[in-house]
C-alpha cells in the first residue's frame, strides 16, 4: 500500500478576517425582524381583502389607518409608530442579511468546480437574491399604491388599486413578487424557528408544515385582490 506523507507547515495559515458580531446574533436579528414583518403581512393581507367590500368600505379603512387612536393620539401618530417599527425591522433584516452574505463570501472565496445540492429547497436557495428583488418590489409598490407617484389614477386608495390591477403587466409583476415573498416566508419561518432554538426533531415536521401553510395562505390572500380586479370581480 502506498503511503502519502504530508508535511504541514505551521504558521502558513493567514488569519481570516473575523466577523465582528456573532453570526448567531445576526441570525437572531434576522429572525426577530422577520417575525415582525410576517405579523405585518398578515394584517396587510386582511386589509387588502376589504377591497371586496367595495370602494367606500376600502377608502374608509384606509382613512381609519390614518386616524387610529384618535382623538387620544393626534393625527397619524399610530400609523407613524407602525411605519417606524416596520422601517427599523426592514433595516435590521437587510443589515443581518448583507452581513451574513458577506461573511459567507469570505468563508469560501474559491467555489467548487462541481457542486451538487442534496437538501436545499428552491426557497432556501433564493433567499438572498429573492430578498433583493422583494426590496425593489416594495419600493415600486409604495410608489404605486401608497404615494401614487407611478399610478395613473390618484383620486383615492381604491382608485389606485383599480388603476394598477386593471393592467395585466402590473398584475404579472405583483404575482411574481408575491410568489417570491411566499417562498421567502416558507424558508424564513422554518429558519427563524431554528435560530430562536424552538425547533427539535419532534416539532420539525410541524414547523415545516406551518411554514408552508402560512406562506401559501399569505400568497393566495395577496393574489386574490389583483386577480379579482383584473377579471372585473372588483370594480
Amino acid at each position, binding site marked *: 500500500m502506498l503511503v502519502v506523507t504530508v508535511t504541514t507547515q505551521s504558521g502558513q495559515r493567514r488569519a481570516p478576517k473575523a466577523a465582528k458580531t456573532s453570526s448567531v446574533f445576526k441570525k437572531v436579528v434576522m429572525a426577530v425582524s422577520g417575525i415582525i414583518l410576517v405579523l405585518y403581512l398578515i394584517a396587510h393581507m386582511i386589509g387588502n381583502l376589504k377591497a371586496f367590500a367595495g370602494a367606500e368600505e376600502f377608502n374608509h379603512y384606509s382613512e381609519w389607518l390614518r386616524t387610529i387612536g384618535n382623538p387620544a393620539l393626534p393625527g397619524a401618530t399610530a400609523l407613524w409608530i407602525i411605519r417606524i417599527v416596520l422601517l427599523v425591522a426592514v433595516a435590521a433584516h437587510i443589515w443581518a442579511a448583507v452581513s451574513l452574505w458577506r461573511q459567507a463570501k469570505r*468563508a469560501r472565496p474559491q467555489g467548487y468546480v462541481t457542486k451538487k445540492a442534496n437538501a436545499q429547497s428552491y426557497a432556501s436557495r433564493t433567499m438572498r437574491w429573492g430578498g433583493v428583488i422583494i426590496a425593489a418590489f416594495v419600493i415600486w409598490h409604495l410608489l404605486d399604491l401608497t404615494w401614487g407617484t407611478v399610478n395613473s389614477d390618484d383620486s383615492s386608495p381604491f382608485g389606485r388599486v383599480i388603476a394598477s390591477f386593471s393592467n395585466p403587466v402590473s398584475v404579472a409583476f405583483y404575482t411574481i413578487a408575491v410568489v417570491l415573498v411566499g417562498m421567502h416566508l416558507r424558508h424564513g419561518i422554518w429558519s427563524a424557528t431554528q435560530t430562536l432554538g424552538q425547533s427539535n426533531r419532534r416539532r420539525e415536521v410541524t414547523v415545516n408544515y406551518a411554514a408552508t401553510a402560512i406562506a401559501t395562505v399569505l400568497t393566495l390572500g395577496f393574489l386574490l385582490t389583483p386577480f379579482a380586479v383584473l377579471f372585473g370581480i372588483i370594480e
Partner: protein
Amino acid sequence: MTMTEDGPRAATAPHEERTMRITLRVWRQENAASPGKMVSYRLDDVSPDMSFLEMLDVLNEQLIMEGQDPVAFDHDCREGICGMCGVMINGRAHGNGMHDGAVQTTTCQLHMRSFKDGDTIDVEPWRATAFPVIKDLAVDRRAFDRIIQAGGYISVPTGTAPEAHATPVPKKDADNAFDAATCIGCGACVAACPNASSMLFTAAKVTHLGLLPQGQPERDDRVVNMVAQQDREGFGGCTNIGECSAACPKGISMETISRLNHDLLGALRAGARPKS
C-alpha cells in the same frame, strides 16, 4: 472458510472480469499559496469492490510508476470512524446523496460499485477559508481543534473514576447525547454548506456535552466561546439550509443547531460572554 489454492478469490471468480474504466478529474494544488487546477487521469482497471480511497491508491501507484507526483489526500482508519478522510466527489461531500436512499458514509466507505463503467468523477478538496488546502485534496482542519479547545470539553478531577450510578442520566438524554457524539469532525458539513458554516459540527459538540450532567458546569461558557471561536476562524453563518445534515456521514440532525441556538440565547441572557 475453506481456502482453495487460489485463495478466497476463487469463489468470486465471475466478478473478477468486471473491472471499470474511470476518468478522474482531480484537483491538483502544490500548496496553500499556489493556484490549483483540475487534472484528468484515466484508470483502466478499477474493481467495483475497491473503496474510493483504494481507487485513489491505484491512481497514485500509476502516477509514481510514471514518475509523477502522487495525489495527496487525508485518510487513516478507512473504517468510517476516524473522520480523517473526506473529499468532494462529483460535487457532494463524501459522495453522499448520489443515490436516493443510500446510507450516508465517509469517503473510505464509499465503494466503486456506486459508479458506472466509463464514469467521469470530479474530486475536489473541502473548500473553506478556515480549511486552507495543504496540498491537492488534503486540507488543514485545525480550525475544528481550536473550536474544541474553546469549550468542547468538560473539566473533571483526575484520579479514581467515580461510581457510575452516582449520576443518573435519563435514557432519552443519553440517546440524544450519543447521537450527537457520533460526530467524527470530518468537515463534510462545512464543505457542503453554501455558507461554509461549521454550525453542525459545533452544534453536535454543544448538544453532546450539554445534555449530560457532566457538561452542565461549563454549559453557558462552552456555547458562547465555541460560537465566538467558529466566527473567529472565518466560517460562514448558518442559514438553516440543511445541506450539512444531508452530507453528514453520521447523520447529525438539524435539531442540534436549534439546541445550540437555544443554549446560546439562554447563556447570553444569563450573562455569559465569550473570552476574547
